């Protein structure tokens, strides 16, 4: 198993990153602020605290994926540690996969810490917590896998800042393509409709993974939607990792 050392190394290195700890603390503080909001909520405490918790977990995890993911490959090149790694019997695509799963492990652990924080907030504010609240977090893991793969993909050919910016733009646009498609349908211009469709189908449709509102309002989500959205996440991530490996393979190191 050649992936394991890369995964562990990426995990340990990322955990040492100050930005990760700062972001987790920020998320926990954001969730704890629910206690201040509670008396102002006028009977809507449950909804507001759940929204706040899920949004804080989401935002912090996305920022970790964007900022930590964007630096992964470039840092190795800059520190020249990549030459030591690649001198060992490990293929380049294995290196990319190792990096990806390493960061996903970091995100999973961060998510676990934030989720525990969220359920503690629910406990302290005496709001009923149910397992249905874990569903948007499962969706978030798949959304994060796409974002991480995107960050890794950009990280193979641009600087860390560039990779973070491009990933963040795609994260934003990925949530907008649905609106773009709807607006284009109103304009009724074939060129605009074509472009909107192109964006809608080719760019990652991250809005698929946003079920927070539905869960907070206890709206049932069809099983088919859950299964196919998760498959979409896996396939999209796999494609991005393939592209990242392809670029990294041809990179002159």
């Amino acid at each position, binding site marked *: 198993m050649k992936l394991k050392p890369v995964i562990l190394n990426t995990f340990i290195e990322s955990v040492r990153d100050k930005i990760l700890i700062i972001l987790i603390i920020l998320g926990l503080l954001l969730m704890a602020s629910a206690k201040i909001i509670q008396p102002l909520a*006028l009977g*809507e405490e449950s909804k507001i605290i759940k929204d706040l918790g899920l949004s804080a977990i989401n935002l912090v995890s996305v920022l970790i994926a964007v900022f930590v993911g964007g630096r992964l490959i470039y840092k190795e090149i800059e520190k020249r540690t990549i030459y030591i790694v690649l001198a060992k019997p490990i293929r380049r695509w294995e290196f990319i996969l190792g990096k990806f799963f390493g960061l996903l492990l970091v995100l999973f652990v961060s998510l676990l810490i934030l989720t525990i924080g969220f359920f503690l907030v629910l406990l302290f504010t005496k709001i009923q917590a149910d397992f249905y609240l874990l569903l948007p977090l499962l969706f978030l893991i798949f959304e994060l896998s796409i974002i991480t793969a995107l960050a890794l993909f950009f990280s193979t050919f641009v600087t860390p800042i560039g990779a973070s910016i491009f990933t963040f733009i795609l994260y*934003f646009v990925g949530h907008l393509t649905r609106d773009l498609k709807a607006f284009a349908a109103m304009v009724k211009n074939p060129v605009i409709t074509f472009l909107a469709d192109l964006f809608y189908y080719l760019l990652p449709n991250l809005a698929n993974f946003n079920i*927070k*509102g539905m869960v*907070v309002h206890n709206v049932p989500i069809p099983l088919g939607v859950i299964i196919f959205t998760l498959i979409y996440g896996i396939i999209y991530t796999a494609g991005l990792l393939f592209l990242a490996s392809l670029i990294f393979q041809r990179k002159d190191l």
Partner: protein
Amino acid sequence: MKRRFLFLFLSFIIIVLWLFSIVRLQLIVDKKRKKPLRELLVEELAYFPSGKFLKPVVIEYENFVADLVWLRAIQYYGHHLMTDRRYTWLGHIFNILTQLDPKFVGAYRFGGMTLAWDAREPEEAIKLLRRGMRLNPLRWEFPFDIAFIYYMILKDYERAGDYFYLAGRMPETWGISQRWAAFSYGKSENRRDFGKIIFQDLYQSTKNPEMKKIARRGLKFIKREEDIDYLQGGVDKYYQKYKKYPKNLQELLTFGFIDSIPKEPTGGFYNITIGPDGKAKVSYAYPGRR
């Protein structure tokens, strides 16, 4: 060592001065604005023509942003309730809020009630509640609240009956919705009694303390109407007997036309005033106000 201490001391002084100056400057900026912060927060929302445009900007955090708008809406409502009772932006705020989170039932209901009862815009309230009904077709609360407004404010009993009937057919509805449909279709003179029941049930059904206040206020208004009718009855009987009007309510009590002078439920008192037509009418006033 000494230099290091001096360096740390100077750094500390600079940081303290910096903190002091930013706080001071913010206070100056706030003062120059001449408007309270809560007004500015609401004015900010006025720049958005609708929540439809705000929604794409806030991407997947629309529910959280809707919660922030909800907190602003409550502050706005609370402030104007305590001061001028003018709610210019209330409808706009609740429109943005419910467009951001179309399933926020509490916001539609609170928006509907405050628009109808406090802002005196029942048509706007019905519009908001109808949108809620369209987007949440299985929630009985929307037709129920619309019926309530038709019944209590617009006094359109036919439509009130239609919406009560609709509410009664929804899943998990109150059994009493059907009863009210019958009340509304059948009647009008017993409006106050039914209004009392509706307000009492509204009070029981909500966790929102402001909604509870609205219901309590509604009950007080009905009680006042009942008191005025009762006292006016005494005045009319007095006139029939003596062909003149009593000077005050105490006179009605002394001559046995009423059993007691009820306490005005909102902190005022009842009195007799002579109208331009020369007839005596029972009305209410507040101590210290003319």
